[in-house]
């Protein structure tokens, strides 16, 4: 078992090393063979591990194996250890499966691009880091994976580095997620302080034995800090700004990293830390509210996007919000269920979008598409399936998983009607913008630029076959957890039950009983279908039936529309509120206050040097003149001496 676990991790690493070092000398076929074998092997071993795990006598208790001591510093100890339980099982299988398919797809997509080997080396490295993240047995090791996926995402976003926007987007992603990482780090430090360990098994055992209410303060703080890390990584309010820009990267990357796997790391982390959050209902409430508001907020932005990939990016943010709602109301399994189904249909959407891009030589503007369904039947069909799934049309995977979350928002231990209604409205918005995209791209009259028109074609088999497989999963993945109300067994929910049972029990016992009577599960489903249907209908009316309607409507609601098109001006506000003040603040503070006030008046008869236009403290301090250097040394000595004498 311990060997098997390692074997899941190692193939992508080997692939990355091989391609990274020798890739430049290999022919493309070898590179892609190496690159695709790695996730294939990982998938194989993940399945094998799952099978072995299922036959362990200790199952469903988590299996932990420590390979060697990694860091040891006094009481602080972290091993290189892996942790495997049913949640890990689900994650490893889903991650390896999706990434295997995306690797296959990339063979075709990246054929014409430069840096083929580099791309696959990064992609394999990413998979290795992601698997490290989900199998880690302690927070520091998880953090390695966490940072590693961030690094790979940074490298892949900036893959088209000659484009300035690409390298800027890479930088933005890196810096914004770093803010979250500070929270994560502090959270882990605080956790260590509280329990004297950062090991999952130890901490969770302690937590389960902890009487409710104990250590509430520090656990809540830990929960919030860790969630801050998740907010950065999973692109929630207010740190979501990097994800839309991240679409600068190649489309398979958007599919794999920025839809299916990396961005869900935050959700996984919250679910993994369920025992902790069970003791910190306040932190959990923050998770739920942040998720719900983000879901709604991002969905409204998506309404007015005309760039297909950006639209999908906002949709991803919105769906991630759903997952956090699921976790936040205490139904961790629902959040993970949606994570899994979303991985399938969202990567499908992205890959289909990539296929469209391929056909249109990189065009992403929905207003310059239309009528593509005739030329690109497979792509259209698969996109349609994914759209149906994400919109929550009954019978497809998205319906079941979203429904589980909506029901949870109502009935879950921390459920609240307000969350429920906001989430339901968002479901309607989702249906609207997804169908809008579908109709604009594939239906109606062609608006493709005449020059491109002759080139429009269906993508090759290398690309369409993974689409079909993903479409298949997008349909059926939901049936693993058919709700009771429809005669199903909620198998997925029950399967994960041993993992989350104690936390849910604790939450149910401490949370105040939900006010009023909850509507039945069927009513919840009916409502969501109703909203989705309304969304579909509006999109149909606006973009197929009466195509003039939307422009008239936008005329009427010009202000609102502008606000949405410009994404609530969040980037501008950030730039104005944070970036610019930081940049100027140093100048103003150092120059105006410290320099002009203290130094100029005191040190130098300003006349000659005050004319220097953009002088600042540094320039004055580092004037190059030895005498002023000596003055600083002397001043330093005098100040320190003065302090010590007067203390």
């Amino acid at each position, binding site marked *: 078992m311990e060997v098997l676990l390692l074997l899941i991790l190692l193939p992508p690493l080997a692939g990355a090393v091989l391609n990274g070092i020798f890739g430049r000398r290999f022919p493309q076929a070898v590179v892609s063979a190496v690159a695709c074998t790695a996730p294939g092997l990982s998938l194989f071993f993940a399945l094998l591990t799952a099978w072995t795990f299922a036959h362990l006598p200790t199952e469903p208790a988590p299996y932990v194996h420590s390979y060697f001591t990694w860091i040891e510093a006094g009481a602080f100890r972290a091993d290189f250890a892996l942790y495997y339980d049913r949640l890990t099982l689900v994650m490893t299988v889903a991650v390896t499966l999706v990434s295997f398919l995306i690797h296959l797809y990339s063979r075709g997509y990246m054929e014409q691009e430069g840096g083929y080997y580099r791309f696959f080396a990064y992609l394999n490295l990413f998979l290795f880091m992601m698997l490290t993240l989900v199998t880690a047995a302690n927070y520091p090791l998880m953090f390695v994976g966490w940072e590693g996926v961030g690094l790979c995402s940074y490298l892949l976003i900036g893959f088209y580095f000659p484009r300035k926007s690409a390298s800027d987007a890479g930088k933005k992603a890196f810096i914004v997620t770093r803010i979250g990482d500070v929270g994560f780090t502090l959270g882990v430090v605080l956790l260590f302080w509280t329990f004297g360990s950062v090991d999952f098994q130890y901490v969770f055992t302690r937590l389960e034995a902890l009487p409710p209410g104990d250590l509430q303060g520090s656990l809540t703080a830990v929960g919030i800090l860790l969630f801050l890390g998740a907010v950065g990584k999973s692109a929630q309010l207010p740190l979501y700004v990097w994800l839309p820009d991240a679409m600068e990267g190649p489309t398979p990357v958007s599919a794999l990293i920025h839809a299916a796997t990396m961005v869900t790391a935050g959700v996984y982390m919250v679910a993994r830390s369920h025992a902790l959050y069970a003791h910190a209902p306040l932190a959990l409430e923050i998770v739920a509210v942040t998720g719900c508001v983000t879901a709604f907020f991002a969905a409204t932005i998506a309404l007015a996007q005309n760039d297909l990939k950006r639209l999908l990016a906002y949709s991803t943010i919105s769906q991630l919000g759903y997952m956090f709602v699921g976790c936040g109301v205490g139904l961790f399994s629902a959040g993970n269920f949606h994570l899994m189904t979303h991985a399938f249909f969202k990567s499908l959407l992205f890959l289909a979008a990539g296929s469209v891009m391929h056909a249109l030589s990189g065009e992403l503007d929905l207003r310059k598409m239309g009528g593509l369904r005739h030329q690109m039947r497979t792509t259209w069909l698969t996109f349609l399936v994914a759209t149906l799934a994400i919109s929550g049309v009954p019978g497809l995977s998205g319906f079941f998983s979203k429904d589980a979350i909506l029901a949870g928002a109502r009935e879950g231990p921390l459920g609240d009607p307000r969350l429920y209604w906001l989430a339901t409205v968002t479901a309607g918005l989702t249906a609207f913008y997804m169908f809008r995209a579908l109709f604009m791209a594939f239906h109606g009259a062609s608006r493709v630029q005449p020059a491109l028109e002759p080139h429009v074609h269906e993508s090759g088999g290398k690309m369409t076959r993974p689409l079909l497989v993903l479409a298949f999963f997008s349909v059926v993945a939901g049936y693993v957890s058919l709700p009771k109300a429809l005669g199903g067994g909620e198998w997925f929910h029950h399967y994960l039950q041993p993992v989350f049972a104690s936390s849910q029990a604790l939450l149910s016992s401490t949370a105040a009983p939900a006010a009023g009577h909850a509507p039945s599960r069927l009513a919840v489903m009916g409502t969501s279908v109703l909203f989705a249907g309304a969304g579909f209908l509006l999109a149909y009316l606006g973009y197929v039936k009466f195509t003039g309607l939307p422009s008239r409507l936008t005329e009427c609601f010009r202000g609102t529309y502008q606000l949405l098109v410009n994404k609530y001006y969040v980037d501008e506000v950030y730039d104005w509120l944070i970036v610019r003040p930081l940049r100027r603040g140093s100048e103003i503070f150092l120059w105006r206050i410290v320099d002009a006030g203290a130094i100029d008046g005191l*040190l*130098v*008869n300003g006349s000659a040097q005050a004319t220097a236009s953009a002088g600042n403290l540094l320039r004055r301090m580092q004037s190059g003149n030895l005498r002023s250097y000596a*003055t600083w040394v*002397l001043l330093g*000595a*005098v100040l320190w*001496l003065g302090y010590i*004498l007067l203390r």
Partner: protein
Amino acid sequence: MMLPQIAFFFLSAVTLISAVMVITRRNAVHSIIWLIVTLFSVGGIFLTLHAEFLFAVQVILYVGGIMVLFLFVVMLVNLDVALKQAQFNRQWQVALVTALVLMAELGYGIYRGHQGFTLAQVTATPMSGGNTQAVGLALYQDYMLAVEIASVLLLVAMVGAVIMAKRKIE
């Protein structure tokens, strides 16, 4: 007032006046001459404190060696241009104030802390055989290693001075 006191006050006055001259003279040669005066009077104070050996070192090594080196260098470089320039920069008030504050701080420290010094009974002549013998014995017995390290230091100084001042290497 006894003789040592008178000698001390006289020598300190000379020291301070000449030190002020060192840092205010326009001409570098004058500064050096005044520095020599300072060094002599400091040496004199050494003498009043029964540090005869140090007095000799001060005169022979400092005045006879180091200061002559300074003079050589001043003669070597052409300072005529420099004479015509202002010798102080605009910062001199700041510098003076800072230095005064430094003096005040150190002085205040002494004032506050003077009872903290462990002071032994002062004996007129510390050891038989004279100061020089005592210092010599201490240097070559207790401080043998330090002397060796100092020799390494002088070697470094020699190599460094040669390499920096040589006109052309090879």
